[in-house]
């Protein structure tokens, strides 16, 4: 696992060099939240059950986007083969990308969340609890999506297959994250923390599962 930090640093350096990836992911989240709000109507979109759900769906798709982008870079000139041929390369690749992508998605989530609060004029009763929910909810996303992207690495139709594989697997996570954030919005501290606890459990399970199978999953 000692290589994980190196891979993460490499990932974040390439991202920082070209922050356009981050910028587009944020714009993507904003556009999705905006368009979905227009569709369901502003009253509905502001409800404390609907707003967090829209937020997490947008974040899930943003996670798919940044993960795919990260692996696309890896596929150019077969860069990934060089890492896979190193001892412990597969595990380092998974863990490193997990760290880097969780950090990126968390940043996208923070900016996207502030945007959504501003756009929909939401009042956040418990900001601290909301932060905890976002921080914990953000880990499981790359843990699952990385595996799905890795499984479909050189396949045609990857762009469509990843959501198909990831959405069902992340449904419990989406439900828990929506509830944790929704209760933080409406001011139910204990309820929010209980769901956040579940989020932590889900994140741990998926991360451990991912680390276990990454060796076989990454072709």
């Amino acid at each position, binding site marked *: 696992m000692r*290589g994980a930090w190196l891979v993460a640093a490499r990932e974040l350096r*390439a991202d920082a*060099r070209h922050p356009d990836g981050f910028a587009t992911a944020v714009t993507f989240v904003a556009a999705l939240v905006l368009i979905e709000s227009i569709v369901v109507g502003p009253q509905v979109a502001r409800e404390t059950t609907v707003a967090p759900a829209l937020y997490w769906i947008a974040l899930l798709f943003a996670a798919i986007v940044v993960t795919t982008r990260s692996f696309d870079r890896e596929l150019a*000139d077969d860069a990934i083969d060089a890492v896979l041929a*190193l001892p412990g390369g597969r595990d380092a690749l998974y863990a490193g990308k997990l760290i880097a992508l969780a950090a990126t998605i968390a940043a996208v989530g923070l900016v996207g969340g502030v945007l959504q609060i501003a756009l929909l004029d939401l009042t956040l009763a418990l900001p601290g609890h909301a932060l905890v929910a976002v921080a914990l909810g953000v880990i499981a996303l790359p843990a699952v999506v990385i595996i799905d992207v890795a499984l479909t690495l050189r396949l045609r139709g990857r762009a469509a297959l990843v959501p198909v594989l990831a959405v069902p697997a992340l449904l419990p996570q989406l439900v828990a994250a929506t509830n944790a954030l929704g209760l933080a919005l409406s001011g139910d501290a204990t309820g929010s923390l209980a769901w956040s606890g579940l989020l932590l459990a889900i994140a741990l399970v998926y991360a451990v599962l991912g680390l276990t199978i990454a060796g076989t999953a990454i072709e």
Partner: protein
Amino acid sequence: MITALRGATVILGDRAVLRDLDLEVGPGVTVLRGPNGAGKTTALRALAGLVPLARGTCEVPFDLLYLGHRPQMLHGLTVRENLRFFTELRGRTSRAPAYSAALGVGGAREARIGGAIGRWGLSADADRPVERLSAGQRRRASLARLDTEWCGLTLLDEPFAELDDAAVALVHASLASARDRGDAVLVASHGHADLDEIAGRIYRIDDGRAA
């Protein structure tokens, strides 16, 4: 014996690409020859653990350096950053403490990376992102790993492709010094008859079989 394929069969898609292939790589330079489509690339990828065997066995040593058909550098990073990443990662994950020490840290490592960049004629391009390099420059950057991460076993797939004459001579020099160090190098190539002079052993394959 440093590595070997024994009775290796590889099936890709609908096709048996390697069939019952035996291949032994010992210290010195081993050359793998064969016409286009013979299975050279696949044999190297099998040795690097990148392609599963349908039958047979492959003895992969813990540490190896695989330079494939394409330059394998991460787009978005510069040549120097790519080289640094690979050295560091190898130093961290290698099980041989002496080896990780030899890879150098801090100043010594940077000096070695700088030396490799200079030797492969990339000084002016070392701090440009790799996707902006020409094909030959990118190949040179990839080959610079021969100097920064020398290894007990090196697998080279068509190392001469895209190189001009000056760079071809550099590859030959690297092969000679690896042989003199007693390391094992396996080179897959169709042409380049002058490889035979340095080669300890030459395998010929065709259609996935020894020919």
